[in-house]
């Protein structure tokens, strides 16, 4: 499927519109590359130290990070923080949890539930700008979901 959207390189005046590529089917190699690129977009933000996609059991299935990170701890963070947030939201009848933010002494942890029980995890240091990270995260989630929902 194609759309009539303009590509980035067509910004010059008078350039003919070039349709954007819309992926409805994707093979595993391409999917991994696309996901890496989306996680790379997050880690390119100031202060973001890691971005990962974690499965329902807490195992990271894709991970981009600046320095050594305890992937087991990442799984535990997802289970505890997201689980607690979901329970809290249920208690106050606020519906599904879209985003969880944990602001800590040395940085932030943001968790966004994805399709198929997956979770997008972003970790930052104190230099991160919350608005930028949150904006990027909210824009990235539908893209990651589309990749996981796309047929192989």
């Amino acid at each position, binding site marked *: 499927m194609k759309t*009539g*959207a*303009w590509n980035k390189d067509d910004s010059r005046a008078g350039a003919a519109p070039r349709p954007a590529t819309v992926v409805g089917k994707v093979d595993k190699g391409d999917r991994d590359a696309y996901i890496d690129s989306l996680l790379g977009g997050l880690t390119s933000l100031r202060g973001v130290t890691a971005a990962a996609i974690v499965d329902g059991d807490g195992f990271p299935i894709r991970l981009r990070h600046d320095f050594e990170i305890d992937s087991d701890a990442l799984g535990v963070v997802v289970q505890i923080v997201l689980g607690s947030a979901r329970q809290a939201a249920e208690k106050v009848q606020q519906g599904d949890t879209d985003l969880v933010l944990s602001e800590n002494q040395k940085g932030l942890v943001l968790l966004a539930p994805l399709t198929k029980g997956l979770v997008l995890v972003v970790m930052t240091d104190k230099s991160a700008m919350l608005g930028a990270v949150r904006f990027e995260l909210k824009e990235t989630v539908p893209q990651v979901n589309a990749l996981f929902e796309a047929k192989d």
Partner: protein
Amino acid sequence: MHWLAQQLTSLDQVAERFARAKTGGDRFVPETGDAREAFRRALADLASGVSKRPGVAASFVAHEGLVLATGGNVPDFDALAATAQVCLSAGKAAATGLSLGGLKQMVLVGEDHKLALFLVGQMALGILAPCDVNLAAVLGE
């Protein structure tokens, strides 16, 4: 052409390309990442560029009350971004109630400094300057 108006027009063009790149609905569009990065860079350039105008103390871009990009140096950009959200929300309601048309800008003037707020699509641009600075002249030339 007015300098700031020119910057905002350029930003609008980048924002429009970003919006168009998202037209895949619930499907993955590889180009969206590039367009989003270009949009983010344009916002950062705007905040940085505005803060370098003579007399401007600091500038920021905020999204839903949270800081997205900054230029210059003030102790608390978070507070400025939150203030921008509160003021612009109230301003939008007032503009609607008074049939002023869509809200474009607001200025808060204190005894020492003033804060100019501009709505740029879903973003807020804030400019902080000492009271005696003529922002129209500084941002126009």
